[in-house]
Structures are given as C-alpha cells and as structure tokens.
C-alpha cells in the first residue's frame, strides 16, 4: 500500500484528524496567548508576591514535560473530583503549558522596547494603561512576531501528545490506520505531510505579519 493509497482510502478519517488538530491547537493557542499576556502583565506588578507567583508558575510549567501536565489533568483529575473529557483536558493542558512560554516571549518583547519610548509617553501625560495598550503591547507584538510564531508551531507539534489521552487528532488517526492496515510507514508519512502543510501555513502567516509590521525595525 502506497502513501497515496493510504491517503485516498482514509481521506475522511485523516481530514477529521487534521480538523481536530487544528481545532484543539488553535483553542489552546488562544488560551495560552491570553493567559501568557495576563501572566506577563502581572509580572510587571509593583507587588512582589504577585511577581513571585508568576515566576513560580512559569518555572514549574517550563520545567515539566507537557505529557505530565496532560496526564495529571486527564488521569489525575478524577481523583480530585475533576472529570474532564479528553478534548477539553487537551486544550487546557496544552494552553496552560504554552502560556508559560508565551509569557517568557512577551517578557523578552517588553524588555526590548527602548525605555525612552515609555518616558516620552509619560512626559505626554499618558496613563499607565494607555502606555501599556498603545505603546508597549503594539511594540512588543511587532518585536516578538518571529518568536511567537515559532512557539505556535511548537504548539502544533506538541499537540501530537494529545493522542495519548485519546484525542482523535492526526497522530491518533495515524495510529488507528496503522492498526487497521498493518502498514506502518505510509500512514505516518501521510500525517507528516498534513502536519507539514498546517505548520507551513502558520509559519507563512508569521512571515506575512512580520513584513506587515516591519516599520521602524
């Protein structure tokens, strides 16, 4: 059985897997970006305990394999009375894990904004909130687009681990086809091609945004 045969024979299954990968990872990425930004804004707080909690969260998440985070949520959840379905558990796990990385990227972005731009805002009477919303965040986003999309690509690749907690995404689908057809290489090549298409599309979005916001780089 060739790769082409595999794709044509299992197309509906592969597409549903691709959709699951896109759906789960996109939601996880949105969650991770939002939570990551909140974490980083809290990290700029003048209250030391708040900063300390953010640092601890980031360090723990960055020091833990994402698979462990997923196991704890999915298999460990019931023991503390928290029963989660595979898909929400996957989104949540991947999201809270990615948030730590995004928070670090945001931090690097904020740090590379020249101090003088903030001083200019202060001298023009802008409030702290206006400085964050109108100067820091737009500038930070522009500076971090390459790193940000690198991490989003990582999120898509990490999402393969969701197969282990039984989410029917691409990798799970490939394993299923392997079991049904007893050919091994072809199904995995087929999903690799699909992963590659998705990741290439994400990377191109990144390049487009990078060019679009390149003034003053």
């Amino acid at each position, binding site marked *: 059985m060739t790769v082409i045969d595999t794709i044509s024979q299992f197309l509906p299954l592969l597409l549903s897997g691709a959709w699951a990968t896109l759906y789960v990872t996109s939601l996880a990425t949105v969650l991770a970006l939002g939570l990551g930004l909140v974490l980083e804004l809290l990290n700029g707080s003048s209250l030391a305990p708040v900063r300390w909690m953010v640092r601890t969260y980031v360090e723990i998440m960055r020091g833990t394999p994402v698979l462990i985070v997923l196991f704890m949520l999915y298999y460990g959840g019931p023991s503390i009375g928290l029963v989660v379905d595979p898909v929400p558990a996957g989104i949540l796990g991947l999201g809270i894990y990615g948030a730590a990385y995004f928070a670090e990227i945001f931090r690097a972005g904020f740090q590379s904004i*020249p101090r003088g731009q903030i001083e*200019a805002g*202060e001298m*023009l009477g802008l*409030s702290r909130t*206006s400085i964050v919303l*109108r100067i820091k965040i737009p500038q930070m986003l*522009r500076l971090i687009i390459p790193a940000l999309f690198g991490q989003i690509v990582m999120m898509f690749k990490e999402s393969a681990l969701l197969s282990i907690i039984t989410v029917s995404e691409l990798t799970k689908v490939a394993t299923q086809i392997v079991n049904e057809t007893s050919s091994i290489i072809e199904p995995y090549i087929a999903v690799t091609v699909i992963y590659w298409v998705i990741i290439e599309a994400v990377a191109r979005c990144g390049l487009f945004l990078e060019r679009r916001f390149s*003034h003053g780089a």
Partner: protein
Amino acid sequence: MALNGQPRVELAASDREVVIEVEELTKTFGPVPVLNGIDLKIRRSEVVCIIGPSGSGKSTLLRCLAFLDPYTGGRVSIEGQLLGYKQQGERRLMQGHRELAKVRRNVGMVFQHFNLWPHMTALENVALALRVTRKLKADQAEREAREALSKVGLGDKAGNYPSQLSGGQQQRVAIARALAMKPHVILFDEPTSALDPELVGEVLGVMRQLAVEGMTMAIVTHEMGFAAQMADTVVFMDRGVILEQGSPDEIFKNPRNDRLKQFLDTWRTRSF
C-alpha cells in the same frame, strides 16, 4: 499655531514669573553623587542653555526637572508645585503616576534619541496625546497635530513612519509632538547630538523659531554657537555643580571660572 509665551523683552528678565525653580538639588546614583546642590530659576520666555563636559551632570539635571530621574535632595517646583514628591508629615513620599503627570502637565520634553513610537506615523505620534491626555475629538486632534507638523516644516510627512524619516525630520516630529500639548516650558536633552552634522541646522532652526516666539526652554547642548546666539542665560556645569551662570556675553567673552575658561579653550581649538 498660537504659543503660550508672551512676546519677549517686554519685562526686565528678572521680573518675569518663575516657571521652574530648583533649590539645593542633589542626586545620587547609589553611592555616587551626580548633582551636588543646584540652584536655578527658569523664568517665563527665558531660554536657558546648559553646557559642560560629558559626565558633568547636565543631562541628569534636565531629567530631574522632568522627574524622569528622581532627585534625592532639595526641591524642584513647576509653576509653584512641588515636582515628584508629596510631603506627608515629616516624610517625603514619591508622587503616584497620576499626581506626577498633573504637575508636569505643562512641561514638554525633547530627547536626544527622539523617542518617537515606531509603530505610528508622524501624525499619530503627535495626535495620540492630544486624544488621550487632552481628550480632544479625533478630528480636532488630527487638525492640531497637522498644524504642529506644519509648524516644524513637516506638513507633507504626516503619513510617514519614523523609519521613513531622516534623523532631523524625526527630531522635528518629536518637537511637534511636545509642542502640540501647548506646554509652558520645553526641556531639550541634547536634541542635536544624535544627528548627522548636516541635519543639525534644521532642528536648531525650529528651536530658534520657538525661542523668538517666546517659548520657555531649557536646553542641554554642545552647540555653543546656538547657545551664544539664542540663550538668555548660559549655565556652565562640571562635576554636579553650577560653576558659572550668566548672559552669553559673560560666559563666552568674559568667563571668570578657570574650569570654564579651559572648557571653552578646548572647544575653540576643536572647532578649527
């Protein structure tokens, strides 16, 4: 665009109202003293040029006048209001962001490195604070921003991003941005030091025009020609103190302080 200053020379300089008053100002960075007791008055419509060697504390002094660097002793008042601190019984507490913004509402600042926001066009750079701080409606803010840009000769560059402008043009946008807030005084921190030599003139030209129209200005500069021509008062600093201050004639033609004489000699030799 109407400026807030009155025409110059009507009053004897010493009778004009004090805009910025500096008393016994000291500043340390950790254990290192940078300013060691500065007294200075800047009056309405006065142009004060602060000169001195590198490391003399002149930029730090200017930044203290805006509280961008918090001073450690003495006081700075802007039109009678204490800048940066509030007295609470015996103790002096730092003002919050909002209180500080209120006291320096009428102080504009122009930086050595322009500090324009690169993600906004020239027009947006100027208009932002008009909308956010002065709370003008979008069309009114845009109109005033365009006027300010025209005033610095950049009416046709409103849609350009900073990266599409020369250094001299960027600095003029920065001046327009400060000016559009209708400040009572503008502080210039080495406004031409980061510019290619052939671009210095256009920026000094704009500053000269402001001076003639009566804007109150404090300028840290290495442009001795500009100081000699435009300043009402020249202040010479070294090692965190003011060694001499006076009219340009007194400072440049009859310097009394030895350190100042030496500084001017070095500068004259260098300009050949």
